[in-house]
């Protein structure tokens, strides 16, 4: 049996069960991609995992974890205008960060080709919103393909790369969470093993690359013309097809059709399979620009059509206005319930939408009620997590009316009970800006913001510099765990895994931060003191609350032969049921038994002992065998 790392780079064709994200990595190797950049974010980090599984000396491309999505995009831009086929990928909201540069790309010539992979997140499974990046495609004149399955993702990457090279435009490959993580059997092709020379092919004649005054209109004119020309590619794309699994007969004298794209197409086919109805389904997975000729004849061929798309009303509005202009006599239905603009459109959701239009053919279904014995499991910090110690300690320092500003990362979980810290959240690195705003004219309430170490570098610095400059009166706690934890432990500028470690302390010192302390979060008393001092300090103050990610640490430990499980115990002779460990510190390893006694779940506890100091009667200790 071959290892994954050997399979993904095997020059010969093979087939196997594989995840959408991993299939994209394979497609990059096959297509001869030369530069790949990203900033980690769900649902896309497994693309990087697959690329990095191949050791550097065997890896036929340059891969980079950039500081943020905008930097990643700019690297990809620089390399494509140097002639290299390039890829940049990130999560849905990553495009917001990248957009300042990304919106320019559609105006220029991507000489070597550029594919931008977007990990949109209908359902907001791991994002702060479920923004529909198809809007960006229109704004930035970037053609878009939206695969519905891992197999389609693999083929769509090849098509996107070809399209990009052919028209020298950037192409969006818009994945969604489900397509990224779905698995199925895929047949892969060959990898061209011819060695690529990184020749420096940049030439201003391939431009203009300078969108200033005189060139803005010509560039925009070219972008509009290119999108118009690419419509022909869309007409001929294998991603824009009609599925008629049960024929195209009339139902009660009418021909019925559905227009959809990406994953909902499969849900609709699933619905048809249940009732075996002869409804035609037009898939527009090459969704921008969509093929007007094909859509025109589909509308003309049908008496009634429902447009079903995940998230916003983009195809609905465009196709309806097209039908009006073309004077097409087809009844076009769209989603009537605004709830259907939210979340993933799985089979039960598309059934409901169709059922509201054609209730006879798709009758309302009865569903079993969910059991009332299933309480929600809130995502929580892991046992031993340094953030838990930090929140517990900081809480002791905070006045009850303090205002706390959250940020993106595992420490966003501090918002949940019992810590209730981080009362607002916008985006990566917003905390210092928002906290500054909250401190203006505020003489009564303390303001404290959080930021993670990866986020510090990603987008935190500009607002921190601003806070130093104006000496805004708030405290910033850097929740340092030495990795990009939430997305799967990727390295960042401060970890020392890529280049030489960039010290957050030194950066802050050199900026001129006047109050700066560092403490390990397991030293809870000291952290409480520092935060109190920081808040008493008039002006901007920073406390670096550091502890390595214990999930990452424990994964390393468990791999060692010498590893033995450790845990703490609650001495029942000492315990007075103050419940601090369970209710205030709230490590999930503590259990309250039916008799009210608190014990330790040894499967969860990692024996870090950070809980010991929280017990007012010191009833918690490492277990007696000294483990």
């Amino acid at each position, binding site marked *: 049996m071959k290892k994954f790392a050997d399979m993904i780079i095997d020059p010969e064709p093979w087939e*196997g069960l594989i995840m959408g994200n991993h299939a994209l990595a394979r497609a990059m190797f096959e297509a001869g991609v030369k530069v790949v950049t990203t900033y980690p974010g*769900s649902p896309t980090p497994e693309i990087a995992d697959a690329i990095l599984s191949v050791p550097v000396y065997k890896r036929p491309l340059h891969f980079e974890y950039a500081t943020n999505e905008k930097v990643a995009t700019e690297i990809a831009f620089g390399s494509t205008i140097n002639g290299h086929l390039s890829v940049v990928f990130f999560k849905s909201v990553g495009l917001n960060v990248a957009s300042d540069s990304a919106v320019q790309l559609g105006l220029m010539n991507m000489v070597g080709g550029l594919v931008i992979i977007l990990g949109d997140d209908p359902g907001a*499974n791991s994002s702060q919103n479920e923004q529909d990046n198809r809007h960006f495609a229109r704004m930035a004149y970037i053609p878009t393909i939206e695969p519905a399955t891992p197999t389609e993702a693999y083929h769509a990457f090849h098509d996107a790369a070809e399209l990009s090279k052919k028209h020298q435009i950037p192409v969006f490959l818009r994945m969604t969470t489900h397509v990224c993580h779905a698995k199925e059997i895929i047949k892969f092709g060959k990898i061209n093993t011819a060695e690529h020379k990184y020749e420096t092919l940049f030439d201003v004649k391939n431009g203009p690359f300078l969108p200033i005054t005189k060139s803005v209109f010509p560039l925009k004119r070219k972008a509009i013309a290119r999108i118009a020309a690419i419509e022909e590619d869309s007409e001929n794309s294998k991603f824009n097809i009609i599925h008629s699994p049960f024929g195209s007969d009339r139902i009660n004298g009418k021909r019925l059709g559905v227009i959809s794209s990406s994953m909902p197409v499969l849900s609709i086919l699933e619905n048809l399979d249940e009732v075996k109805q002869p409804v035609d389904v037009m898939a527009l997975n090459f969704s921008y620009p969509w093929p007007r000729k094909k859509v025109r004849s589909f509308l003309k061929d049908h008496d009634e059509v429902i447009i079903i798309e995940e998230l916003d009303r983009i195809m609905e509005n465009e196709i309806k206005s097209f039908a009006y202009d073309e004077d097409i006599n087809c009844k076009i239905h769209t989603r009537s319930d605004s709830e259907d603009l939210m979340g993933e459109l799985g089979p039960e959701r598309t059934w409901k939408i169709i059922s509201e239009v054609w209730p006879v053919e798709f009758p309302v279904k009865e*569903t079993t*009620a*969910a*059991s009332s014995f299933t309480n929600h499991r809130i995502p*929580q910090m892991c046992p031993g997590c340094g953030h838990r110690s930090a929140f517990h300690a900081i809480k002791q320092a905070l006045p009850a009316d303090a205002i706390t500003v959250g940020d993106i990362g595992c420490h966003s979980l501090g918002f949940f009970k019992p810590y209730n810290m981080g009362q607002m959240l916008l985006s990566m690195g917003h905390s210092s800006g928002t906290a500054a705003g909250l401190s203006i004219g505020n003489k009564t309430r303390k303001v404290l913001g959080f930021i993670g170490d990866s986020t510090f570098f990603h987008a935190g610095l500009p607002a921190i510099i601003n806070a130093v400059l104006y000496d805004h009166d708030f405290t910033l706690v850097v929740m340092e765990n030495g990795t990009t934890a939430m997305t799967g432990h990727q390295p960042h500028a401060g970890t020392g895994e890529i280049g030489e470690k960039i010290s957050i302390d030194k950066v802050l010192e050199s900026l001129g931060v006047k109050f700066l302390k560092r403490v390990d979060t397991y030293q809870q008393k000291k952290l409480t003191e520092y935060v109190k001092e920081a808040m008493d300090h008039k002006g901007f103050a920073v406390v670096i609350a550091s502890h390595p990610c214990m999930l990452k640490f424990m994964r390393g430990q468990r791999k060692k032969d010498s590893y033995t499980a450790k845990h703490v115990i609650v001495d029942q002779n000492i315990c007075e049921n103050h419940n601090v460990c369970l209710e205030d510190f709230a490590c*999930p390893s503590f259990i309250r038994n039916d008799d009210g006694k608190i014990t330790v779940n040894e499967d969860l506890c990692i024996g870090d002992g950070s809980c010991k100091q929280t017990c007012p009667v010191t009833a918690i200790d490492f277990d007696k065998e000294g483990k």
Partner: protein
Amino acid sequence: MKKDIILCGVGGQGILSIATVIGYAAVDSGLYLKQAEVHGMSQRGGDVQSHFRISDKEIFSDLIPFGGADMILSVEPMESLRYLPYLSKNGWVITNDKPFNNIVNYPETEDVYKQIKKLDNHILINADDIAKEIGSPRSMNMVMIGAASSFLGIEFDKLIEGIKFIFGRKGEEMVNLNVKALEAGKAFAEKFNK
């Protein structure tokens, strides 16, 4: 042949290895397979689920519709109840009986069992104990596959091949222990499937 299975449990309980073994066995049997899951925040002690579809014909969606699942295979009892809207009328709930108690408002275990026992087709199995008895506490997942094995539409030998596939690199003893766990799960479930 078409089997739609909801795999569920809590992040970190190792649903992935169940999916890998059944997936390998299905592919090895020449069947179509689609699997859907959500990664991300769910890794941090939250509930996790995976839609798993096996068929001898082409499968459209990787998502199982409500009322469509032939089986809910859960490594945690409360989690088995969360996905009941997906269960088909004749579907089976096969669940481990050991609660993963990481929330303050976990319901009374007996109440959870009562709800499971109300279902027409259910197997409530002490998979953790069985795994411990055979000397491999971490093979709870394989016990669960064993319990589900006669409902999967896949030959038992193919599941053993799947175990060899994922544990092969860790040595023969590891393979044997996990096969033993698989067989123990099967033996337990046979009492229910008569």
